[in-house]
């Protein structure tokens, strides 16, 4: 893998919703390239005939009865954490 360009880092930052500083862009360009360079060792591993393992327990479709239950977190308790709220709703900055 070649080194990440400045544009690559900016694109990743944008996808990750991070407004990086100039200094961070430079720093992450080097650091992220090094990390990606390290993990590239896997490309040489022979995995012929093997399937990927996405989860370890083998559990499938864990469900419970569809019924109303009491839960300790209340709507008020959850809303109390909001940085801004109005009329019992989360308040956000303008969208457009």
């Amino acid at each position: 893998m070649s080194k990440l360009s400045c544009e690559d880092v900016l694109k990743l930052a944008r996808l990750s919703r991070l407004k990086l500083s100039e200094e961070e862009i430079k720093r992450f360009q080097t650091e992220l390239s090094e990390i990606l360079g390290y993990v590239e060792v896997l490309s040489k591993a022979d995995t012929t005939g093997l399937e990927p393992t996405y989860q370890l327990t083998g559990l499938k479709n864990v469900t419970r009865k569809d019924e109303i239950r009491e839960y300790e977190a209340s709507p008020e308790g959850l809303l109390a954490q909001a940085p801004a709220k109005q009329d019992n709703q989360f308040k956000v900055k303008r969208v457009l």
Partner: protein
Amino acid sequence: MSEWLPIADIAASVQSGEQTAIELVEKALAAIVKHQDYDAIISVLGDRARARALEIDKLVSSGKNPGRLAGVPFIAKDNFLVSGGKTTAASNILKPFEAPYQSTAIKKLEAEGAICVAKANLDAFAHGSSTENSDFFVTKNPHDKTRVPGGSSGGSAASVVLGIVPFALGTDTGGSIRQPAAFSGCVGYKPTYGLVSRSGVVAMASSTDVIGPLTTSVEDAALILDIIAGQDELDSTTITRTKSYTDLKGDLTGKKVAVIKEYMAEGLEPDVQKQIESAIEKIKKAGAIVEEISLPSLPLALAVYYIICPAEVSSNLARYDGQRYGYSAPDAKDLDESYELSREQGFGAEAKRRIMIGTYVLSSGYYDAYYKKAQTVRTKIIKEFEAAFAKHDLLIGPTAPTVAFKIGSKTSDPLQMYMNDILTVAANVSGNPSISIPASESEGLPVGLQIIGPMRGDAEVLSAAKAIEELA
């Protein structure tokens, strides 16, 4: 250094009225103050702990049994949601956060009479191996203040070793319970993946995250596991438990123990190697059949981990958007800028690195080469473990390649920092239970011996660990 009795004895003394819960809580709170220069603690839950202690003492005086952990004080890593205080995950973005509900593990411990007295420091969001990635401060090693305690559960490990509490809770995603236990000098247990509910714990990498105890003895770790293990409706990844984890058979005679060749290889500090070899000799003398085994794909586990973990981190940390809870940038013009500024200002460098690496390896065009390839090599590692456990009862090796390093010595090179996890990540990638117990010391600094067992072999790992602990 710890002056606490075994946990079962502490609880028995409270149940019998010989000691009161409030005395134990005051002892822990005084120890927090006494050891505050180690920076192990983020917040103290003094009022909450005292109120709970008085309730427990009232139960005892009215002839009731408060439970198997009656009056036992403990500390939770600050990524466990606990009511009555803040849960920060040692991050600026969660600095104002007060949990509106509690984690299942905390509820189970408190239902048995345990009392959470404080929240411990960690690498922010548990991303790290030294607590140096905490957005607040660095915890110091109990044996040498110029060194790190390990991480990410460094505050939990230091609290136990300093004797502030008899046990602490930690989380282990790539070694974050075992490695600080090794660096600080206590027992750290990582259960089989899925055995302990993670409901109410700040998620890091969901396919490898587990919860476990840090204690001064294997017996204490087994008792805590026995209380927190089991299926939970609030965590659909939990598995069924064994009836008991406390019936430890401390006999090594005839046990088939294999030393992992790749863990005794280059990169290990010579003195760590010497200490581990001497522990292996003792295990042989105790009657175990010790052989060497090669698991050739194990050295790839670190690369597998540093693809899977950031991928899952990038997804799990997407929820911190500055809108519903946590830090929100005050000067944003619109919603999009509010997301970008809140996350930019609220996340530390390591969280940003992992979010971006994760975003990269999951993006179209790179997904197959990185993410899918890593998950396939994961299968290869699992198969090697399965083959090893078909022939052997336990695998052993060191927990970390070095003793605790100097504060600041690895912070400028993230990849160098990742290398600390090289011997612990495999058990996370595969899900196997694993423990670190103090083997001995190297020039005054602890060395940890790691024991890995087959999937769901938690009782076997704990039994063997107890037997080995007694040889030291």
